[in-house]
């Protein structure tokens, strides 16, 4: 409870949490909230590129679709991509980090060297190349991003595990004959959870951003997906006159990523003892 009250005093983090809740809410209930849910795919050639008005708060796009609705509907795709990517990256990265941190021999060394190789790869370029390799689609973008994001988790978990390996409770567990997987997953992992959660929260925001870049470059989401990055790319043809077409999807990206990052920072301040001292 103390922690929660402390969190509430951190205004930016609270704002972040509110934004994240909003994005999650829109992702779940979007189709019921959006004024024109059918505009996810339908087109209305007779009301193209209308400026913002009461009927269309964010205006309409090149196919006459309500941008406000499509911004709302885009939340689900953005969240889905980021959850899958971060989930997959954790599924690869966390076990590797545990093994590498607990082990002392060549295996640990090998895992960490491979991790280093992947860390040195320019993520965006690799993701673009992979998306090209598999044919541009949301699925290949998700796979590409997961394949480039897992090393971050390996690094964190490795560091935490290596620190905890020599802790008294691990010695005790080994003493009473607990198996290695048991020690790793039931005892060490929970203790390493806070940095993982922090990293994952920031990773969710970061993934939304990179997925938007892929969509923008035509290597991610495909039409008629109400994807935010794709919408900005499509809007360029109609600038400078149809300024609303480019503006609102971009603001949606900004807001969503901002929310996850603020929340992640707030969480980090809560769990990082060094920063806790400095307050």
């Amino acid at each position, binding site marked *: 409870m103390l922690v929660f009250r402390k969190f509430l005093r951190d205004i930016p983090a609270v704002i972040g949490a509110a934004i994240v809740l909003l994005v999650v809410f829109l992702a779940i209930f979007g189709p019921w909230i959006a004024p024109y849910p059918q505009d996810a*795919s*339908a*087109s209305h*050639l*007779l009301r*193209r*590129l209308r400026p913002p008005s009461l009927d269309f708060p964010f205006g309409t796009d*090149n*196919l006459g679709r309500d941008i406000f609705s499509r911004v709302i509907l885009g939340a689900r795709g953005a969240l889905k991509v980021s959850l899958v990517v971060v989930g997959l990256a954790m599924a690869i990265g966390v076990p590797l980090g545990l093994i590498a941190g607990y082990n002392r021999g060549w295996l640990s060394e090998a895992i960490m060297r491979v991790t280093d190789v992947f860390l040195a790869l320019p993520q965006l370029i690799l993701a673009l190349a992979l998306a*090209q390799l598999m*044919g*541009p*689609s949301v699925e290949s973008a998700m796979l590409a991003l997961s394949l480039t994001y897992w090393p971050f988790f390996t690094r964190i978990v490795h560091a935490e595990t290596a620190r905890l390996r020599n802790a008294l409770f691990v010695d005790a567990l080994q003493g009473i004959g607990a198996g290695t997987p048991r020690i790793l997953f039931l005892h060490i992992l929970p203790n390493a959870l806070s940095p993982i959660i922090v990293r994952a929260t920031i990773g969710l925001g970061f993934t939304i951003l990179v997925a938007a870049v892929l969509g923008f470059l*035509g*290597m991610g989401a*495909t*039409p*008629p997906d109400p994807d935010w990055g794709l919408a900005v790319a*499509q809007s*360029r*043809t*109609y*600038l*400078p*006159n149809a300024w609303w077409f480019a503006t609102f999807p971009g603001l949606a990206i900004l807001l969503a990523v901002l929310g996850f990052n603020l929340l992640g920072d707030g969480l980090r301040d809560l769990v990082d003892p060094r920063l806790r001292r400095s307050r």
Partner: protein
Amino acid sequence: MRITRRDTAALAFAALMAGPMRGHAATPGLMVRSDGQPQSLDPHQVFDVPMMGYSLNAYDGLYRYQDNPAVLRPWLAESHTASADGLDWEFKLRAGVKFHDGTALTADDVVYSFRRVLALGKAPASAFLPILKPDSITAPDAQTVRFKLERAYGPFLAAIPIVAIVNAKLVQANVKDGDHGAAWLSSNEAGSGAYAFVAGSLTPAERLDLQRFAGHFMGWADNPSPVERVAMRTARETSTGVLGLMNGSIDWTDSYLPTDQVEQIQSSRAARVEKHSSLRTFIIRMNNARAPFNNANYRRAMAHAFNYDGFITEILKGYADRNTGPMPNPLWGAPKDAAGYSYDLDKARAFVKAAQAEGVNTRQPIRIHIQSQLEQTNQAAQLFQSDLQSIGINLRIVADTWANIVTATAKPETSPDMWIHWVSTYFVDPENWVGQMYDSRFHGTWKASSFYKNPEVDALLGRARDLVRQEERAPLYEQATRKIMEDCADIWVYNTVELRGVSNRLSNYRFCPAGGGAELRWLQLKG
């Protein structure tokens, strides 16, 4: 001390921001092009729309297409003769033509250029490789070039302008490891054209400068205020080029303007849109080799389900002409009586039923590949998607790139169900359209990616190719086209109106379907 530093910073900032207020005072004599430069500057290695935008200015050919409709005019050649069987061709060259370095252009340069095209075997060679051997191109004297063809080839003269004539001595001096000077010429120039490449001005795919060549053989008497210098500055997106046009920093965009840009440009006082009916067809491809598209009734259902008029009037704002067949309407060899397919969902439903009766599974979802860089392909696909939905066909849109699609079209198994593209004018001859699109000998190239196979059509197209006289060839192409349309091999949508944004500083724009109006010699520049 601190204040002084701040002042300095403020001054620097002011200096940066306080350039000429409205962007750019145009430089006298200079025009800026935002359409892309070719992949390589060697006109014998690349042959596409950007290359024509360069080579029509830096190089000359024996003949040249000009005006609209395109007329084939003698250019470096004064005249030609052909034997009755179409095997022997003789071209007489104009006297006194000089290359940019001052060397005289002779028949030897022409022979070298054609042999070089054959030896390199790249894009411009495809029209000549089957009919021409290096030794059968000869120069009996300095002003005469002879070609002896292996067999008669109808489109031979039509394809002659494809080959740019290069300065043989200059290129030969730069040959390395027997590469025919390919490495050197891809970033240098050895031509005689009206504009000369400025040495050292090239950053590939970014910038390139051309300077007017006062000694061009056509002279400049007909142009009182020609463009002195051309700065090619590639804008990656057409939209950037349009923005530049509107703020005065760019004078000339590519000719694929999205129609939505037209009004925007027309409303700015700085620029206008040049609109010209061209020979560039817009096609929705169907993979005839694969189910369900191997059924003609299914294909006909598809053809009746595309909203042609809606697409042309609403999305393209009328800047396109409905073209019901594979050949551009204005071209000879296009049958004037074939009606083609109209937007009619009832007919479409009837054909779906007919296809179902023939055992076609119309429930299976089909995929259409669009070129994600080209918004129009996306718009067409989305329009198609919503109409197909109403007749119970599930169309999925796949964003793809030119490079990927072209690779996939090598085999019917990997080729997409459907995809969307244009066929531009590489040479003005039916061979450029139906010939290379529906003759099964071209299966494996992107142009023939519907994998249509009809022995009757193959025979007609083969015969037309082997004849020389247009009067004899035209009925064969018409007949073949009618058959292809009856079989509904693809969905033919429109013939392009080319739209190019041009600054009002430029006048006397002369359009030609081959090259899309990129010949700059005519242009007059004020200021």
